[in-house]
């Protein structure tokens, strides 16, 4: 009898739990629908007043009457949405409103909350309406915070604030142990733009950065390259040639290419002889970005490299150098290195050169001569598959000339 009671109890408990789960599932959906409708009705009431404030900057009783928890719950969200888009007077009005309503003070105090999502939300808001005075507390949070999400949000907020102090803090955080935070810091420094260059150059020039924070140094280099920061050339040259971390050398070389100053060509040519192939590949890439025709012989040498990526970047660099580079690639087609020939042909094909030449095969004069020379180089190199593919797309005259050239096709040297 006793066991029957226990079993009955177990059945009752399980049935109650299942029913509870079902009710909870339906209840959650219902509550969510109710909340959405409640928020919608409030937004409908508040939004006109907020818009009016943005336009005029005049006090709106509707906004001031809101209890502080409602200000924090949805007024601040509406303000953040607008601050993300606004510039000028409207933005200033909203920043002032945040100060006047005490939103900034409350967010600052929330930075010390024991609950991490409250800290994250406060940091997010301060990025929009905290202004210069929020930079220091956010910097302190960034240094002391354990949670990666909160750190990433804080980094983003500092970038939004964008004052010199905020930039200094961010540049000092490039070596953060979390890759996510480093990534956020880097992209935000890039977003800040020129004001970030000075602190980044200083941090890269610091003697211990590479050893202590190699990730930070690599990221600083990438940001400087993406910002095309010519002020950073000296420190980048130093990193490109003398850094012990291979990634740093490669990124510095690429950054110099992005900056695109011809005075850096000698350094890049030296980097093209680096012991690591990624650095050589980036050197080829960088030389292509600068586009100095005097570097063509070296790029042709790189076309015969053992590493595919170096050959690939060298061929891309040459093809970007106009007629002289095109000529160099045709010469490569006639060379003795089958891998270099294949790469040159693939680059010329993918950039549409081969298509263009085949359409000029029956043209009289220099243009036609050049096209015939180039196509005959492709035929000699044995890289004729694309020519066969193009045959049917050509006008009758060009088809006839191409057929004649292909008829003389030798067995590929390869």
């Amino acid at each position, binding site marked *: 009898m006793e*066991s*029957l009671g226990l*079993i*009955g109890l*177990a*059945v009752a408990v*399980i*049935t109650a*739990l*299942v029913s509870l*789960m*079902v009710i*909870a*599932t*339906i209840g*959650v*959906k219902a509550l*969510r629908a109710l909340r959405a409708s409640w928020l919608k009705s409030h937004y409908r009431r508040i939004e006109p007043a907020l818009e009016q404030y943005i336009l005029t900057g005049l006090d709106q009783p509707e906004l001031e009457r809101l209890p502080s928890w409602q200000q924090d719950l949805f007024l601040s969200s509406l303000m953040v949405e607008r601050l993300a888009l606004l510039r000028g007077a409207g933005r200033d009005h909203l920043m002032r409103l945040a100060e006047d309503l005490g939103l900034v003070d409350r967010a600052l105090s929330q930075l010390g909350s024991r609950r991490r*999502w409250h800290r*994250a939300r406060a940091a*997010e808001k301060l990025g929009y309406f905290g202004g210069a005075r929020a930079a220091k507390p956010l910097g302190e949070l960034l240094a002391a915070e354990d949670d*990666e*999400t909160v750190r*990433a*949000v804080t980094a*983003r907020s500092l970038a939004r604030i964008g004052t010199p102090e905020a930039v200094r803090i961010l540049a000092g955080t490039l070596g953060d142990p*979390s*890759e*996510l935070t*480093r*990534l*956020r810091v*880097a*992209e935000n420094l*890039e977003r800040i733009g020129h004001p970030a260059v000075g602190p980044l150059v200083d941090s890269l020039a610091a003697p211990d950065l590479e050893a202590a924070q190699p990730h930070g140094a690599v*990221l600083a280099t*990438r940001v400087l390259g*993406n910002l095309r920061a010519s002020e950073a050339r000296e420190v980048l040259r130093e990193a490109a040639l003398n850094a012990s971390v291979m990634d740093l050398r490669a990124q510095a070389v690429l950054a110099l290419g992005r900056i695109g100053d011809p005075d850096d060509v000698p350094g890049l040519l030296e980097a093209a002889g680096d012991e690591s192939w990624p650095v050589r590949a980036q050197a080829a890439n960088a030389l292509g970005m600068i586009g100095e025709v005097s570097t063509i012989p070296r790029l042709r040498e790189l076309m015969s490299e053992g590493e*595919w990526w170096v050959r*690939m970047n060298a061929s891309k660099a040459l093809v970007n150098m106009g007629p002289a580079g095109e000529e160099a690639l045709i010469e490569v087609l006639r060379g003795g290195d089958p*891998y270099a020939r*294949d*790469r040159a042909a*693939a680059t010329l*094909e*993918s950039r549409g050169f081969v298509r263009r030449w085949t359409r000029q095969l029956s043209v009289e004069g220099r243009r036609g001569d050049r096209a015939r020379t180039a196509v005959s180089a492709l035929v000699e190199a044995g890289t004729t*598959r*694309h020519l066969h593919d193009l045959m049917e797309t050509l006008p009758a005259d060009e088809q006839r000339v191409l057929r004649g050239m292909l008829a003389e096709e030798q067995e590929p040297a390869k």
Partner: protein
Amino acid sequence: MNFNEVILAANYAILGYFFALNGFYLLLYAISFVEVLDYTRREVFGGYSELFASNYAPPISVIVPAYNEEATIAASVRSFLSLRYPVFEVIVVNDGSKDRTVEILLKEFDLRESDQPLRMQLETRPIRSVYASPTERLTLVDKDNGGKADALNTGICAANYPLVCCIDADIILEEDALLRVARPMIESKKVVAVGGIVRVANGCEVDSGRVVAVKTPRAALPNFQVVEYLRSFLAGRTGWSVLNSLLIISGAFGVFRREDVISVGGYLHDTVGEDMEIVTRMHRMLRENDRDYRISFVPDPVAWTEVPTTLRVLRRQRDRWHRGLIDTLIRHRKMLFNPRYGMVGTLAMPYFLLFELLGPVVELFGYIALVVGLTLGILDFEFAVAFFVAAVALGALLSVAAVFLEELRMRRYPRWKDVVKLTFYGVIENFGYRQLVTFWRVMAIVSFLRKNRDWGAMEHRGFDTEKTVERAGKGI
């Protein structure tokens, strides 16, 4: 001990077993609830649009093994190419298809033969050709047939980027799926692999390779599987991930660090459970090398897959899954109850052995013993009710709790009708469907003992088409 006592003892043992199993499940659920709650709160601050625009996110190679996929391959690849991620490439590995998979890809994407050498750091079947697109970040590797594992290994070798995302050719990825699934790896170098949730696409509206409206299927069979997937992914794998003991990353959608996959030797060819095997092997080797690592599961980056709609195909699928589980547990039996492998050796592996592998046997035996006991009058009505509570009612509770978790945090089913329907199926799947799957899984053990290593033919109906394709043999 006479026969009656044996039956009685067996029934009590089985009853205890069910309480232990479901108690453990409830514990896992509690962990998953907390984790999913945390995940969804963190998502608010995800900043995915910034991550998408970032120059600094690590690039990903998406690897798509394809075997006789002519019906869907072009649409699938097009949808993969339109994913939102800063820098990624798509590598399709044609595993010796007998249909027009290669021709369709060559034509649709204007692919040309490429001279790019592949870094063959894993052993694979011979490669016939490599093609690249002049405009898209798309590579096609055409190779001899060697099975899914071999195709994945080839793709991993062909990958140019440090992260590799292995997916099935017939799944639909949500636009932001790569951003979300890569995030744990961006957050921490310790994370070596991440699995994403796979959901059931049957019933959903699909347009141009994208799920545009999430709905439940009409038929009962796929609805049961929707609940199963929610229970397994949302409640189960999330919990295991928190314990850093996740043993399976679905073959349909997972991201790995390329160097780690290569260092453990890539996917194994001679198993039908290559997705579980590789994750278990990663645990084993990383722990043996004293690496501080994590294998994570993210409950939100959604891959949609079509589940079987007939009992015949579903049986084959479950048979293969269970044989894969047995094979993995046997291969890595050294890890079982071995504290050297931490939580994986002392908790996850024993759980999979005792509850996942042997669970169906115990359950089936329990049903038989119950019937025998009741028929012979050895067991009374009270015991039958207790058995029902332990085996069925607790199961219903777990299923309904999974639907609750889905509605509480993930909210993928916007219609009231679908939520009610899933709750309903969560209850009734325990009356018939569950017992059927249990029987199939027991038969899978028999099939394994008979050394059956076949994949079994699967049917695939394209998402945008009514055409049904039969994929058989050593397929994917």
